């Protein structure tokens, strides 16, 4: 197609027809500030921060939503544009609480950054409060900390539409919506007064996209500090597969930097008694879940079998497709399996009372905070896991103590629950659970070892991927899906009998755990892909890449469990589900 010629800031450039002014400008290195715009969710044009002057037009145009046209002459940084942007910021700030130093998004807030970029402090003069200039009524809405995962503070909301869009389009949950109009406009739960009244599955994608502190992770680090300071408590930490490839971002490292060793030494410096690896739990999950799949295939039980690692997905099934609960693997998630083994086998081995163990997990996930409170996930009344923090919270904890992950020496995980394989590592990316299970299942069935351990067909970032393998002469059809809106489409197909898979891996967040709601913000698909690539690099660098070769896993089976799906396994590592009343 013929390209369009236009002029931006005196520079003649060419752009594809249909692109917006913003896209064309960014392509040519001309930066236009934005606030509500997020590439993956499409343009809204609500905040008016990206306005530019188009010659011949009476009004300023929003660069994010105005397509380029032949012969356009555009000024992105003229006085009238700068004044307009500053007034926009001035108005937003006049209806925004001044609590930056105590806000969880201090230093990562996009509004704060924008105020800095537009030099608002110079504009107002030092020591003057922008709210003074345009003083007036501020919108008042109550804080909603009803859930264990997400805290909503509508007073800090800038009405950018991102959370509503991500909940509607990407996750298909529709838990939050706009209410009222004009100055009273607010984002609120679609039913009831608080998020807990809605279908919210605590995936945290709204937290990920929120430019300010209006949506934040439920933070109770004081409880963790108290446990760490208590000499009576034996505080054990486990780190999810995707933390090691994203934590560095919070310390200025390039996305995709692998900081496994630094993360371990940082956790030791905080004062954890033992630093273990959720990857061990993941390896254990592969053993149980792989065996469960083979048993279901062999006995002709309910198929397809769905993975059950993702707590947001589990809640999703329970509330939308309860008739498919029997299809969920009965395996606990790696986080919970790890906790159960820590408080039984490890406690006995190390001579520690299980009750004195405080099991902490570092997760990329907001839903894990809710998962660990579920009654089904305890053995003899003792919760498997006591506390979960997100990657963002860990970064904050470290920054508060001036521990810089980027410069720390590398250290190894503690023995024995720090042992893991590459199969456990890839749980952090969509398709990883599937691939890890296939590696082990192929060998458990006595199939000749596959020539390559890399099942490329299940990797990638497309919403739904399917593949077929032959196992014992039979065809095994599998699917991998991430992002709950994609999940819904797949479930509808399965329910309508249009898809006949035997095994389906589901992750609620697009891209899997590397794209989790608790990961360092802001991030987009590009960064997510870099994190996933780093995860596969971790896998490749491991000497052991199949879960059943994990020496710690072998030890646990030899000393405690016997074999996968044994009675003891069922007691410790398997679970039940609850149908959610709607």
């Amino acid at each position, binding site marked *: 197609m013929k390209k369009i010629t236009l002029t931006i800031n005196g520079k003649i450039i060419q752009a594809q027809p249909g692109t917006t002014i913003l896209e064309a400008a960014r392509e040519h290195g001309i930066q236009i500030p934005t606030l509500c715009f997020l590439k993956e969710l499409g343009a*809204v*044009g*609500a*905040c*008016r921060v990206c*306005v530019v*002057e188009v010659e011949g037009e*009476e*009004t*300023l145009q*929003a660069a994010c939503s105005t397509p380029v046209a032949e012969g356009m002459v555009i000024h992105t940084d003229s006085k*009238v544009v700068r*004044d*307009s942007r500053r*007034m*926009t910021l001035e*108005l*937003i700030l*006049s*209806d925004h609480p001044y609590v930056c130093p105590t806000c969880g998004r201090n230093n990562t807030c996009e509004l704060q950054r924008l105020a800095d970029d537009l030099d608002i402090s110079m504009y107002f003069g030092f020591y003057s409060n922008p709210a003074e*200039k*345009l003083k*007036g*009524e501020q919108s008042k809405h109550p804080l909603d900390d009803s859930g264990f995962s997400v805290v909503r503070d509508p007073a800090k909301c800038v*009405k950018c539409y991102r959370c509503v869009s991500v909940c509607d389009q990407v996750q298909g949950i529709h838990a939050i919506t*706009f209410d*009222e*109009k*004009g*100055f*009273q*406009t607010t984002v609120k739960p679609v039913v009831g007064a608080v998020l807990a009244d809605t279908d919210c599955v605590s995936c945290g994608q709204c937290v990920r996209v929120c430019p300010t502190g209006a949506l934040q992770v439920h933070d109770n680090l004081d409880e963790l500090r108290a446990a760490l300071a208590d000499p009576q408590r034996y505080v054990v930490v486990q780190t999810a597969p995707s933390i090691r490839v994203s934590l560095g971002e919070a310390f200025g490292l390039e996305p995709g930097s692998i900081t496994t060793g630094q993360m371990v030494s940082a956790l030791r410096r905080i004062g954890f008694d033992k630093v273990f690896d959720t990857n061990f739990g993941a390896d254990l999950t592969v053993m149980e879940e792989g065996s469960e799949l083979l048993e279901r295939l062999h006995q002709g039980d309910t198929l397809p079998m769905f993975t059950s690692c993702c707590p947001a997905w589990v809640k999703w099934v329970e509330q939308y497709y309860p008739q498919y609960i029997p299809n969920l693997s009965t395996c606990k998630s790696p986080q919970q399996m790890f906790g159960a083994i820590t408080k039984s086998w490890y406690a006995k081995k190390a001579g520690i009372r299980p009750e004195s163990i405080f099991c902490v997990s570092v997760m990329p996930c907001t839903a894990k905070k809710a998962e660990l409170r579920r009654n089904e996930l305890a053995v003899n009344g003792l919760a498997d896991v006591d506390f979960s923090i997100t990657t963002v919270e860990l970064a904050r904890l470290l920054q508060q103590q001036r521990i810089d992950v980027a410069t720390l020496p590398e250290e190894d995980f503690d023995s024995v629950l720090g042992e893991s394989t590459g199969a456990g590592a890839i749980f952090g990316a969509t398709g990883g659970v599937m691939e890890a299970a296939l590696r082990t299942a192929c060998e458990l069935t006595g199939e000749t070892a596959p020539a390559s351990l890399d099942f490329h067909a299940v990797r990638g970032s497309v919403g739904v991927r399917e593949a077929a393998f032959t196992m014992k002469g039979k065809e095994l059809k599998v699917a991998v899906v991430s992002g709950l809106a994609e999940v819904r489409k797949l479930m509808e197909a399965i329910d309508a009998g249009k898809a006949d898979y035997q095994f389906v891996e589901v992750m609620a967040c697009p891209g899997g755990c590397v794209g989790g709601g608790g990961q360092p913000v802001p991030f987009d698909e590009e960064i997510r892909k870099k994190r996933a690539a780093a995860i596969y690099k971790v896998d490749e660098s491991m000497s052991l890449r199949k879960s059943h070769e994990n020496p710690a896993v072998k030890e646990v089976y030899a000393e405690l469990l016997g074999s996968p799906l044994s009675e003891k396994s069922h007691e410790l590592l398997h679970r039940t589900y609850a149908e959610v009343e709607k």
Partner: protein
Amino acid sequence: MIQNEKTASLTLCLKDDERHGKNMKITNDWAINIAKQSLDYCLKESCGKCVPCRIGSKRAAEIMARIENGEGEPQDLETLERLCKYMTTTSACGMGQATGNMVLSMLPHLCQNDTAE
């Protein structure tokens, strides 16, 4: 360039007027009524999507109310002018743009009346 001829002289008029002290009160009823009515309409009808209309109209109405109650300060008129120009140029649709224009075209009348006394 985006300019409004009617209001070009407003800033000058304010600066030249030495009687502008604190607690200035402007009582040109018809002009203030038109400005107030258009702002009230905007407050009621704004969909709340874009910042100029959602917060801009609210702040403009608050300034108007201050002026009317005799609590206005000279800089209030300047702010109001700046705000309305901004609403006119930056609002996403005709709602905020027209409201900005309406109030903007009333400003010289408020001012003229005041200086003529």
